[in-house]
């Protein structure tokens, strides 16, 4: 299937392609150390924490990261790593799946465009400080005819793009697996790649939240953005300093919880949705211990030294109180105190809609953090009613 592609690569690169991959590998000490480090770093807890730190770092030191050589160095480094990793049969067998090529494209384009937008934002913010018009502002005064200026650039884009698509389609054949068999469940069973971010959240939430509530709120939340964001600045040009909260929020939501989780789900989740480092063999029998505990067990058994009550509503009272407090008491409390100015700016309705969407969003990292640190399973666990939070 990949033979056409393999024949175009240097012999060292192509060798593992023919092999099919899997199993332990003999490496030199340096290569083994790099692989070990990569496997260690990509473990979901570290992966997520490192991504958050990286995001904050990039935004904070944006003047540095907006430089051309920085992004160039990043891509050179990534390519070098890729070439190195390519020779590992385990890494190779996931990366070279034809359907995973788009994920690589996703990664490269998202990094590139994030950098581009950051660069233009940094330049614009400096210009604004000096009292000069933005990059866009300078050009916006001039108007050009659609024909030929726009029509021709569109045409050139179309031709180049079609050519690229054709080459890709000739080089890599679309895969087809075994015929459908409802009796044989493949392991892992994965949703289409663009939903893997949501599938990743299934580790932390039950399907009714990860698969129904959160997607609905993402759609509603996206629709609500123009009506919630009352900041009139930053319309029609790149900027960071004029809308720091909006940009950071979208970066966290889109880059971290969406794109990076798609990548995690594609490359680092194997059989039983267990975690596998990029250089690890996808072993069917790898089991991750399940040691998670409900909030109710903590409160009743550990703190009060009693058995778990039978009545689910009594048993789950601590979680229910917590959630009611979080969703119903916290917003008005914040609105009356620290966020008073926000309420005044936005009005009651906007503020409440925003707060509820925002609290759902924040619940994700909160639950993840609690899972990693204290093995929390559910705040409210009522399997009797399929109601687990």
């Amino acid at each position: 299937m990949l033979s056409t592609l393999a024949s175009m690569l240097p012999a060292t690169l192509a060798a593992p392609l023919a092999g099919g991959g899997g199993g332990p590998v003999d490496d030199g000490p340096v290569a083994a150390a790099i692989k070990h480090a990569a496997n260690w770093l990509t473990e979901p807890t570290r992966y997520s924490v490192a991504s958050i730190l990286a995001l904050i770092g990039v935004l904070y030191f944006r003047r540095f990261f907006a430089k051309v050589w920085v992004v160039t160095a990043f891509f050179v480094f990534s390519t070098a790593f890729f070439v190195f990793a390519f020779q590992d049969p385990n890494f190779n067998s996931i990366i070279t799946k034809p359907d995973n090529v788009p994920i690589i494209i996703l990664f490269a384009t998202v990094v590139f465009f994030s950098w581009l937008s950051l660069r233009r934002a940094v330049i614009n913010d400096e210009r604004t400080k000096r009292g000069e018009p933005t990059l866009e502002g300078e050009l916006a005064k001039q108007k050009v005819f659609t024909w030929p200026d726009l029509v021709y650039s569109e045409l050139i884009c179309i031709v180049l793009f079609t050519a690229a698509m054709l080459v890709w389609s000739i080089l890599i054949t679309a895969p087809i697996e075994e015929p459908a068999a409802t009796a044989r469940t493949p392991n892992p069973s994965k949703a289409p790649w663009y939903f893997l971010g949501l599938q990743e959240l299934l580790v932390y939430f039950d399907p009714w939240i990860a698969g129904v509530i959160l997607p609905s709120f993402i759609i509603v939340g996206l629709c609500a953005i123009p009506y919630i964001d009352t900041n009139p600045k930053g319309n029609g040009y790149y900027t960071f300093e004029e809308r720091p909260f909006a940009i950071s929020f979208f970066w966290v939501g889109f880059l971290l919880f969406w794109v990076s989780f798609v990548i995690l789900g594609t490359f680092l989740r194997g059989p039983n949705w267990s975690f596998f480092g990029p250089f690890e063999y996808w072993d069917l029998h790898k089991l991750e211990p399940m040691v998670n505990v409900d909030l109710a067990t903590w409160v009743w058994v550990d703190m009060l030294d009693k058995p778990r009550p039978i009545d689910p509503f009594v048993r789950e009272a601590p979680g229910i109180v917590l959630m009611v407090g979080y969703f119903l008491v916290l917003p008005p409390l914040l609105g009356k105190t620290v966020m008073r100015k926000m309420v005044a700016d936005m009005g009651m309705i906007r503020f409440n809609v925003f707060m509820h969407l925002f609290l759902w969003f924040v619940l994700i990292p909160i639950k993840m953090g609690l899972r990693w640190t204290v093995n929390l399973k559910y705040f409210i666990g009522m399997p009797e009613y399929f109601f687990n939070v």
Partner: protein
Amino acid sequence: MQKLFKYVRESQIWKSVFRHGYPDTPRNRTLAVLSNVFLHLHPVKVRRSGIRLSYTWCMGGLTFFLFLILTLTGLLLMFYYRPTADRAYEDIFALREHVPIGVMREMHRWGAHLMVISVWLHMYRVFLTGSYKPPREFNWNVGVILLVLTLLLSFTGYLLPWDQLAVWAITVGTNMARATPLLGHEGPLASALSFGGIDFIHAGDDVRFGLLAGRFVGEGALLRFYVLHCVGFPLIAATLMAVHFWRVRKDGGISGPL
């Protein structure tokens, strides 16, 4: 040669199609855009800032172009594909075995992946340039629906090859619907809809059953997804795209600093 061009351009046929001279004067350039139903989705003049690649990334345009490629290649695939449980897999398989240098299936599959990526990047760009702010709030919302439709198009298409990958990805995806509050048989509060010991919501009538036309991904689901993929969603998407482009124009063209 010159004479030939002139002759063609002055013939009655040419003139019946193009009602303006060669677009090298402002008047003719205006007419070239205004008198063409496709081009007139564009305004006659655009801000120079708005057509810079470094500003728009051309992602909206690319998404639209991918939609066109997918429509074309999809149409060709429809000639060869029969959406039944015993034919679907064979037909796709035969496409590879019997068509030399066939690229239609590849173009369709890689194009579909790319369209998902380009629509995300387009949304990302629109957000980062604050282009959803007044007066473009409504068009952002049209965009969100287009985003959902793009994902639905891709999702329904995922099932059609009818191989293990397809069936199980759709199984995993639609399993979520079981957990819909109230309406899924494993969802919170579904048991509240039971009266006198009779469940109103069970595996045979919940939302998942409605999506799949059955309790599991079977022939009913295949037909349902096929019809939505080839007719339903493309029609809705095309209509909304027309609205989307029209509104880009009516809202003052590609956004720029005021």
